[in-house]
């Protein structure tokens, strides 16, 4: 299969990943965010952060399972969208729920495990976003960069648990996120010991084993 034009694929991903924020902005402008728009924005951005974390974590398994190495080029953008929606989610909480009161935010974070977990997930994403540039990869060196970016596993786990702890009774969606995360992380564990099962060699191209994971 011919390599797709990566620039164009990136454009498609970028446009699609921007659809939710565009619709949120549009609906906010037309007052169509429902009866509780602040809660709606908070929940939507939080869910989006988790979705993009899952998508970013799905890149490596997809790439290996399908033998399409170019997929790796989409991972940074997906991760940055996760960080973007996560930042909006935190900003919504800090503004709508806490009115920028540092004291109230700290109190709540220490008192409520689900908020602590959400904060933890976000804090873990910050260094990953900062070191996402090519320059930073070079400066850190591939091995160190890889080790640092394994923090995303913990950020995703914290995010899923954060969601699970806040729902009242209908835990189906947070559990679904948990299952997806378990599959994505399970694949990595399996891949480490049995790459022959989990990987497909790209047709007529040598496997590059040292690709960042």
């Amino acid at each position: 299969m011919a390599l797709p034009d990566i620039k164009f694929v990136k454009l498609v991903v970028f446009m699609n990943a921007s659809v939710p924020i565009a619709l949120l902005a549009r609906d906010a402008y037309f007052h169509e965010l429902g009866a509780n728009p602040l809660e709606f924005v908070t929940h939507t951005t939080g869910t989006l952060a988790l979705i993009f974390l899952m998508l970013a974590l799905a890149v490596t398994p997809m790439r290996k399972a399908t033998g399409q190495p170019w997929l790796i080029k989409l991972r940074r953008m997906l991760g940055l969208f996760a960080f973007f929606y996560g930042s909006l989610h935190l900003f919504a909480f800090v503004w709508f729920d806490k009115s920028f009161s540092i004291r109230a935010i700290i109190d709540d974070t220490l008192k409520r495990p689900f908020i602590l977990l959400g904060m933890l997930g976000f804090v873990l994403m910050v260094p990953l976003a900062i070191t996402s540039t090519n320059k930073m990869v070079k400066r850190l060196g591939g091995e160190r960069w890889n080790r640092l970016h394994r923090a995303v596993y913990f950020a995703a786990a914290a995010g899923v648990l954060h969601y699970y702890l806040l729902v009242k009774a209908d835990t189906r969606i947070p559990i679904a996120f948990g299952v997806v995360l378990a599959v994505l992380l399970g694949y990595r564990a399996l891949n480490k010991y049995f790459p022959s099962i989990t990987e497909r060699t790209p047709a007529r191209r040598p496997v590059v084993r040292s690709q960042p994971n």
Partner: protein
Amino acid sequence: MIIKKPDDVKSSEITDEKLYLNRRNFIRGAVLAGTTAATTLLYRTLNASGKKTAETAAVRKPVTGYHTPEGEPANDLEDIANYNNFYEFSTSKQAVAVRATGFVTRPWSVEIAGLVHKPKVFDLDDLVKLAPVEDRIYRLRCVEGWSMVIPWLGFPLRRLLREVEPTGEARYVHFVTLLDPKRMPNQKTGVLPWPYVEGLRLDEAMHPLTILATGLYGKMLPPQNGAPLRLVVPWKYGFKSIKSIVRIALTADEPKTTWSDYAPDEYGFYSNVNPEVDHPRWSQARERRIGEFGMRATLMFNGYGDQVAQLYSGMDLKKYF
């Protein structure tokens, strides 16, 4: 396979470069438009913000003039009718109105049973004739931390209870919601044990603020708000005000209630609005009034303390939350 040498290819057979690029741009444009349209559709399907349903859109925005005695204006009907916790239809507050559209509430009977001298199965149309309905403009505080002002139409529960004459042993009132997974589709899930049940102490049930509501904004109750008959206990968290009631039974012992049975450490039998007793996972000190941007302080007994605090005199409300 014949590989033509460049000289063999007639110039007329070569796709013009401009045309080739045009075609590529067209395909790319289509891919971009197609995928973003699909993503838009996906977002709209999975994340509906609560559109106006045909039923509520048909009702004109009511004339103003509905205020609590404290002067707080009632919320818009559109908000009241499109933001509902009614797990029998959906656990998404925005989705209940749509899923409940067409919920049939006639014929409807309500059984009054248990420790009463005159047990009876009422047809709803007879039950609502027991007492004249009146506007009751109450605050509703949800355990989730939001609140509304709702102009109910209803009559005091005690009018019904007096009709059936509770016996001397009766100390509690037990309420049951309709169980019919065909009409209440989310009852097919195990999100909560069905049917939904609630309970009050008899003196709470007899309190003049406790009403059975049949309408809001002067009209019949929309399905998503608990049609055709629901309880409203304004000083308790919203989930105590059970919807679509089919059975009311007087009992000697404290009855089982859905949420306190589901998570006893989070929801008590009393569930009085109390800013000093936090939900184990979130604070109850403040609330967001729907339609307002900031948060306001939550009032003890949802602001009805003058009228109901004496029901609980001598009780440790941190223990009996």
